């Protein structure tokens, strides 16, 4: 994962009204990176779900708190997009961030599943001693090296 400076960084308040604008930059970034319109829309969904969870669970719907997003366009041997989302919300054990059983039909409990299905890599980690970081990565199709193979340091405890 390239840890050079991200080409784009966004700081937003934890207000659901900002999800639309953020999807705007994610969609255009995905298209610039070479994803087709459907994949770009899915990438928007994954980011949207990550942000919505931070707003609802992390910040308990306080709409004035900070969220940071970093976007890397990777054009090297594994082209794609890497997106990190950071907050200063309460920390949780990453293993508690998991999808509901899909057999059970009830409202809610789908966001984490959607993120996992859409992204090639996703992991939640504690961010120092304050807040969480969600690391997302999607490779361009045609550059596949196996889905969900995010390596041993991907200790998010999430079943894929």
């Amino acid at each position: 994962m390239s840890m050079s400076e991200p080409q784009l960084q966004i700081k937003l308040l934890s207000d659901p009204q900002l999800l639309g604008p953020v999807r705007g930059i994610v969609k255009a970034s995905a298209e610039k990176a070479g994803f087709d319109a459907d994949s770009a829309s899915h990438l928007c969904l994954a980011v949207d779900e990550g942000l919505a969870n931070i707003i609802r669970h992390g910040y308990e719907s306080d709409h004035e708190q900070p969220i940071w997003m970093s976007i890397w366009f990777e054009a090297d041997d594994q082209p794609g997009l890497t997106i990190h989302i950071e907050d200063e919300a309460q920390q949780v054990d990453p293993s508690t961030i998991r999808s509901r059983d899909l057999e059970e039909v009830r409202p809610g409990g789908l966001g984490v599943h959607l993120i996992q299905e859409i992204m090639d890599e996703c992991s939640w980690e504690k961010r120092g001693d304050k807040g969480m970081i969600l690391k997302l990565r999607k490779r361009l199709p045609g550059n596949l090296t196996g889905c969900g193979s995010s390596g041993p340091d991907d200790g998010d405890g999430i079943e894929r």
Partner: protein
Amino acid sequence: MGFGPHIERHEMTPGELNITTETLDEMLIVRPTGEVDLGCATLLQENLATALAGTTNKLIIDLVGVPYMDSSGVATLVEAMQVARRNNINLLLCNMQDRVRSIFEIARLDTVFVIVDDIDAARGV
């Protein structure tokens, strides 16, 4: 054929989800227009609750104007479906765009809802 559609228009707030409710041949049609996300799921929920309280027969959610929906929108629809079932109301989704359908597929809810092509197809169900 009834008396033609009776259309109730809600005031549209710029940049937000617009929701209309229409009665057509004993079917109640709720038609959201715009992207459904956490910022407007409550608005959709309120409109669906009102619609569910106002029908005993068939409720159609026409998604023709919804190019995007996230899991908060899906949760709202699941909730509406559960209320509908408890009250023996026939709830149908129609005119679902491919991108929205793919979210239902990823969430494995595409077989849980009755999804029909369009309003005409909804008549027969």
